[in-house]
C-alpha cells in the first residue's frame, strides 16, 4: 500500500512493521560500529515486542543493553555518547515515559548544536512506542509527537507502515540530529512490501496514498491506515478523498498537503494525539497561512480527555474509519444529511486482531 518511493527498483518482500524496525537496526549496526541500542528491556526475551530480537546475540552486550529505570539520565547518556561520535538508539517501550526525559531532550539535545555555536552534532535516535487498547489507559497510550515538534533542533517521524518503518529508522540513524521515532504498537503486526537492502525514507517528502479531488485527508501514524479505510468507504458513496501521509512531522512537508488542498478545497487532519496545540493544529494553521482560497478544515484526534481503560469508553476516545469518514462527508457534502459508514466495514484487522494487554 505505500507507494514504492525511492525503492521501486529493488528487491522487496512482505515484512511486518516490527521486523522492519529490527531489520533497519540490524543492517545499520552491521554497517556502522558506532550504532548501539539501549533502553529498558531491549535485551530481554520479549525484546520490545520483538523489535530488538536477535540483536544481543549478533552484536553483543556492549552494543545492546538494558538500563536502570532512569529515563532522564539515560537520555543524557545517549546525548553524550552521540556528541562523542557514536550513534545511540534509545528505546522507550511507551512514549508516555519520554515525559521523564523532556528536559534532556528539549534543553540539551535540541539545543546542543546551536547553543554551543555549531561545535557538536547529536546523532541520536529515540524510538518510542505508542500503546492502544486492552486497558492500557491514561499513562500508556499517549502520542506525544507534538511536544517534540515544538522544539527547533529535534526531528520527528511517525512511520505508518512497515516500508516506512525501515526507511525512516535508517534515515533517522544516519541523521546527524536528534530524531524522535514514534512507532505505533498496533502497527507492529501489519505487513508491507519492504526492500531487502537498506534504504532511507528521508525527511521532507510526504506521500500521497490515495488520489482524490473532493477532500484532502492527512493522517498521522496509524491514522493513515484508518484514513485509507475511510477513503475506501467514502469512495463507495461518491466522495473521492486524497489521503496524505506526512511521514516526517518535523520537518513537515507542507507543500504536498497544500498542493492537494488547492485542488480539493477541503482538509481533514486525523491525528493519533490530542488536537489542542497538536500536529493537526499545526497542519491546519500552516495551510490557513498559505491557502489562497477559502478552505473548509477540520481536525480530529484523541477526545479531550485522558485515555480511559474501559473498552466502551475507549471506543469513543479514538478516531476510527467511521468517524473519519463521517467527518469527511460533513466537509465534502455540506448541507446534505449526515452519513456514516456501516460500522462493520470500519473494522481494521490490525485493530481487531490485537490481543492485549501490551
Amino acid at each position: 500500500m505505500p507507494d514504492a518511493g525511492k525503492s521501486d527498483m529493488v528487491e522487496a518482500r512482505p515484512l511486518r512493521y516490527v521486523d522492519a524496525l529490527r531489520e533497519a537496526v540490524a543492517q545499520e549496526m552491521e554497517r556502522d560500529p558506532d550504532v548501539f541500542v539501549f533502553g529498558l528491556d531491549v535485551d530481554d526475551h520479549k525484546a520490545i515486542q520483538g523489535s530488538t530480537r536477535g540483536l544481543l546475540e549478533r552484536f553483543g552486550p556492549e552494543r545492546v543493553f538494558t538500563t536502570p529505570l532512569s529515563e532522564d539520565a539515560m537520555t543524557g547518556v545517549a546525548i553524550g555518547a552521540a556528541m562523542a561520535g557514536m550513534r545511540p538508539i534509545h528505546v522507550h517501550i511507551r512514549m508516555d515515559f519520554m515525559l521523564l526525559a523532556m528536559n534532556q531532550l528539549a534543553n540539551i539535545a535540541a539545543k546542543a548544536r546551536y547553543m554551543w555555536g555549531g561545535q557538536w552534532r547529536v546523532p541520536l535516535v529515540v524510538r518510542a512506542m505508542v500503546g492502544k487498547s486492552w486497558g492500557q489507559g491514561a499513562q500508556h497510550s499517549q502520542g506525544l509527537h507534538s511536544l517534540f515538534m515544538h522544539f527547533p533542533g529535534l526531528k520527528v517521524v511517525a512511520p505508518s507502515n512497515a516500508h516506512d518503518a525501515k526507511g525512516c529508522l535508517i534515515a533517522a540513524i544516519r541523521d546527524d540530529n536528534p530524531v524522535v521515532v514514534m512507532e505505533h504498537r498496533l502497527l507492529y503486526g501489519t505487513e508491507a512490501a519492504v526492500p531487502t537492502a537498506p534504504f532511507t525514507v528521508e525527511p521532507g517528502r510526504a506521500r500521497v496514498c490515495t488520489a482524490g479531488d473532493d477532500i484532502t485527508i492527512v493522517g498521522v501514524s496509524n491514522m493513515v491506515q484508518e484514513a485509507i479505510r475511510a477513503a475506501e468507504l467514502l469512495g463507495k458513496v461518491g466522495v473521492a478523498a486524497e489521503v496524505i501521509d506526512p511521514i516526517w512531522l518535523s520537518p513537515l512537508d507542507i507543500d504536498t498537503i497544500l498542493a492537494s488542498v488547492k485542488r480539493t478545497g477541503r482538509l481533514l487532519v486525523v491525528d493519533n494525539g490530542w488536537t489542542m496545540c497538536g500536529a493537526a493544529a499545526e497542519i491546519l494553521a500552516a495551510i490557513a497561512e498559505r491557502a489562497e482560497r477559502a478552505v473548509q478544515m477540520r481536525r480530529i484526534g484523541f477526545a479531550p480527555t485522558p485515555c480511559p481503560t474501559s473498552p466502551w469508553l475507549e471506543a469513543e476516545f479514538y478516531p476510527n474509519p467511521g468517524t473519519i469518514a463521517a467527518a469527511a462527508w460533513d466537509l465534502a457534502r455540506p448541507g446534505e444529511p449526515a452519513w456514516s459508514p456501516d460500522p462493520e466495514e470500519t473494522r481494521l484487522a490490525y485493530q481487531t486482531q490485537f490481543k492485549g494487554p501490551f
Partner: protein
Amino acid sequence: MTEDQLIDLYRTVRRIRRVEEVTAEIYPSDKIKSPVHLAIGQEHVAAAVCAALAEGDIVGGSYRSHAVYLAKGGDLAAMMAEMYGKDAGCCRGKGGSMHIGSAAVGMVGSSAVVATQIPVLAGWALALKRRAPGRLAAAFFGDGATEEGCFYETLNFAALHRLPLLLVCENNGYAIHEPLTRRRAIDDLGTVAESLGVPAHRVADGDVFSLARVAAAAVARIRAGGGPEFIEARVYRWREHVGPNEDFEQGYRSREEAAPWMETDQLVRLAERVDPGRRAVIDAEIEAEIAAAVAFAEAAPVPPVGELRSDVYA
C-alpha cells in the same frame, strides 16, 4: 502479635491471594481487558504494613497494587468491576487494574509510571503533618522504582522535613525481566536511603512476622514525629510480570530460583498458626465474597455514553 491480629493478617493475605488467583482464572476469558500485574507470592508485604496502619493513614502504589488496595480495606466488588471496565468500578472504568484506588479507604489511585507515586505520597505526608499530626502516608513500590531520580529526591526532601512517610520497597529482584544485578552496582537499597537521612530496615527473607514487627515499630516512630523510614522487603514474584501465568519456561529465571520462596509461602506460614476450624470459616467467607464480586462485576452496567467526557476537570 495477638491472636486476633494473626487471624486478621491471615485473612488479608488469603483474601488477596485468592482474589488474584481467581483473576488469573478469569483472565483467559478476555472479560478483564486490563493489564494485570499480580502480587501472588508477595502480597504479605502490603498486608503486614497495612495491618500497622489506621483509618486516616494514606497509602498508594504502582500498577501492582491489588494487594495494597485490598489490605487497606478496598471494596472487592468495586475492584472487580473496575477490571471489567464497568461504571461501578472504583475508578468508574477509567483506571483499570493499573490505576486502582479508593478515596473511601485512603488509597490514592495507583500510577503505572514507575516511582511516580513516591513523591505524591510525600506530598500527602506533608499535608498530614500540617493538618493531622500522628497520621502517616505509606508508599509501596518495587526495586526498579528505586532507580528513578524522584525516589532519591523524595527521600532527601522527606528526611529534611521529617515527613510522616513510610517507604515500602517490595524488592522482588526484577524489573520486568531484568534482574537487579543488571540495573545496580550495589544491591543494598537501604544504604542509599540512609545516606539521605532515612533510617532503613531490610527484611531479607521477606518473613511476614518480621515484616509486621518492623512495620509496626516504624509506624509508631513515624507517628511520634520521628520522620520517614524505609523498609526493604525481599520477596519473590511467582507469576509473570504482567498477566496471569507462570513464566519459568521463558528462560530469564528458573523455577529453582523460585523454589525456596514458594517453600516458605508466607500464606502457608500464617495458615499453620490459625485454628483449622476458624480457617475454614474464613476461607469460605472469602470464596463467597469473591464469587459475589465477580457476579457483581459481570452484571454491572457498562459506562453510559458521555461518561467519556466527565471528570476531566473538577
